[in-house]
């Protein structure tokens, strides 16, 4: 059976991890926002803005890490916009989120046209190279899959560890979780609901933009319209799949990416000749929906998710 050959090959798993990396960044970003009680539907647009920013910064002559940093800052700026409208002003998180996505997408395309008016095929950049980890990359199957990746992928995994540590092991994380559960509890203990939520949305949006930057700086080495292609929306589902927990969300991202990598390979097998390729494209989404139904039934949603906090209102 070809499918077993695929599942046992290191290149398949290496591809899955690579496909998962941008999802991991953006999922952690969304998770931080939602744990603080803010649904951030700006994710899709922020990823597009991040993809463009990172790529353009490098194209304009900046070193690669500086490009990542620029993407982070642009993401945080959109987070500041989203957070200002949803937290102190308490506007509908759905409307603001979709608005931020539309704004970020259009601004990105507009900036692209302004900066490169004559170009028909977008220029490529010298992207992050693979960086095999000594010793670990020698492990059979696991080594080439996990430890022959670009630095950004390692950073994605480190981000999960950092988010989990901050959420569960630090006073800041406790305050973030509490503000997503009951903002009144945070206010009554003398902390600022606005400050915590705004900070979470900015930090989360920054991570989303880095997820977008992964696409241009570590995968496709160039910027195309439509390249984010719904990954942001998938990340929102992955947060639910992961029951708002970092490690479980990581698992979800890898699982989804594995389905994605699998469908690409299945298209090239003899079955692929008989089945329209759209069916394969659909597969990861169908499987994700099924997994979501099975996994997220007993999830504990942050109690104050999507509930704006108005000081003094009872």
């Amino acid at each position, binding site marked *: 059976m070809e499918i077993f050959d695929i599942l046992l090959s290191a290149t398949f798993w290496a591809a899955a991890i690579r496909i998962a990396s941008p999802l991991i960044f953006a999922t952690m970003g969304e998770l931080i926002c939602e744990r603080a009680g803010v649904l951030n539907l700006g994710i899709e647009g922020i990823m597009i803005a991040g993809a463009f920013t990172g790529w353009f910064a490098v194209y304009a002559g900046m070193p690669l890490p500086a490009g990542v940093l620029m993407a982070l800052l642009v993401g945080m700026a959109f987070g500041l916009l989203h957070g200002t409208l949803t937290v102190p002003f308490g506007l509908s998180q759905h409307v603001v989120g979709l608005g931020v996505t539309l704004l970020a997408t259009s601004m990105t395309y507009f900036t692209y046209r302004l900066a490169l008016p004559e170009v028909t095929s977008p220029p490529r950049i010298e992207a992050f190279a693979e960086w095999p980890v000594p010793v670990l990359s020698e492990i059979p199957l696991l080594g080439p899959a996990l430890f022959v990746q670009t630095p950004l992928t390692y950073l994605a995994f480190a981000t999960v560890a950092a988010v989990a540590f901050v959420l569960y092991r630090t006073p800041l994380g406790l*305050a973030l*979780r509490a503000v997503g559960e009951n903002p009144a509890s945070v206010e009554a*203990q003398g902390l600022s609901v606005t400050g915590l939520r705004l900070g979470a949305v900015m930090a989360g949006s920054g991570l989303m933009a880095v997820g977008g930057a992964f696409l241009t700086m570590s995968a496709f080495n160039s910027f195309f319209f439509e390249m984010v292609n719904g990954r942001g929306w998938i990340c929102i589902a992955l947060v639910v799949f992961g029951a708002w927990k970092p490690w479980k969300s990581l698992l979800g991202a890898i699982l989804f990416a594995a389905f994605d990598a699998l469908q690409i390979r299945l298209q090239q097998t003899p079955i692929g000749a008989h089945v329209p390729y759209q069916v394969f494209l659909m597969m990861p989404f169908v499987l994700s929906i099924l997994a979501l139904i099975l996994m997220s039934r007993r999830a504990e949603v942050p109690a104050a998710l999507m509930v704006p906090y108005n000081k003094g209102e009872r």
Partner: protein
Amino acid sequence: MGPQAQARVVLRLDGITKRFGPLVANDAITFDLHEGEVIALLGENGAGKTTLMNILFGHYSADEGRVELFGSPLPPGNPRAALAAGVGMVHQHFTLADNLSVMENIVLGTEPLWRLGRGRAAARSRVEALSRDYGLSVHPDARVGSLTVGERQRVEILKALYRDARILILDEPTAVLTPQEAEDLFATLRKAVARGMSVIFISHKLHEVMAISSRVLVLRHGKLVGEVATEATDRHQLATMMVGTEVAPLEVRAHAPGPVLMALKGVSTPALGNAIGLRDITLELRAGQITGLAGVSGNGQAALAALIGGLEVPEAGEMEMAGAPVEGWSPRRAIDGGVARIPEDRHKTGTIADFSLTENAILESYGDAKFSRKGWMNWRAAEGFARDIIATYDVRCPGPATRIRLLSGGNMQKLILGRVLERGPRIILANQPVRGLDIGAVTYVHQRLLGARDEGAAVLLISEDLDEVMALSDVIHVISEGRLSPAFPRGAMTPAGLGVWMAGHGFEGAEGGGADHAA
């Protein structure tokens, strides 16, 4: 703990004024709190007690006036400053995060945010020591969502003690407690006061005010209208100060009960989400009788109300109306069968806020021949009906076309009462009928319910206020964890006796257990 003239002033409110639009919630309020003193802040709903304490705690900023704590002014509008100065507040609606543990709720905000790791061992032993010292037993690792209301309140008090609060504000702390839990709370407060804590106790329950405080301040319509030493006053005087006029005690005459109109025999209903279901309940509602249901909120009252209102059907057991088993029970069947509801939450389930008084008046009866024929509304008749209710029940409003959201709670409740009583109901489900009403409206609603009883209606009165249940009911049941106690006739039980049942004791071998606590 009498008032000591020499005791240090720990808190001084000076001319506090707060306006919400045209409403003056607090009008130039001035008073002192001394060290080791318990003052009671007494007033009706809407008198401005909670607003005043929210200003003191920094949730609101006052428009005028100043707050002084331990001799130095408190910067307005900042809970952090109030906490740092040693003010702890137990809010009426707890400010706890349900999905976090007790410890997490307590230490939240007490550590610098940007610290790696947490020094929990020291914090934990401190919390354990405090709960031992003050008799506040609660498990530090328990999830707050799994605690009882009484335990949650202990967490709130621990939060204040953990921060070394010197002044403790309690906003209606006993509203959600059984009488025994209230006693425990008072014991804790006395311990704290003995160690120099100063307490502001907000309440509208006179006997508690008499029991715990050394001085009483009375608020009415935002003004401080009286200040008396507790020793020098009595409940009647306090009630008069609180309302502003003499309060006539409610006259309840005995009334001979009639036949059973509704009977539940061994009825159980499933739990819905977090709401508890009914477990093997036996209940008879008789014509001309008020059946009181006492119990701590969340023990199955909602399930029983849903069952009688037709929103829920029995999972097991039998339900009979006028001796015949009911089939296909539904809200429509309940309404047609003469069940009328005064819902627990008049805003959420009693009225539709943006509908007119006319529309709200016929919400349950719009299908009657009087109001609609062959699918066409007869608005003239509906409006006439609304006008009748407005006149008969003294609903203060601009007119029947007014949106009901503009009415005060008391007037809204009068409209609901009219809607219920004008239909000549056989069974009245009165769920928290006077919650949030001022004393005048309370008396009015109670008199009307007694009147309906005298005309032969069966009334089921569900209330968390034990005093209300004991004053009105001809027979009393206690509900606890979805189980129902036997019926106790009027005068057969003391509050303490009912409290034992409210705490969930006595249900095993029910017949024997009840007699032990009978008066």
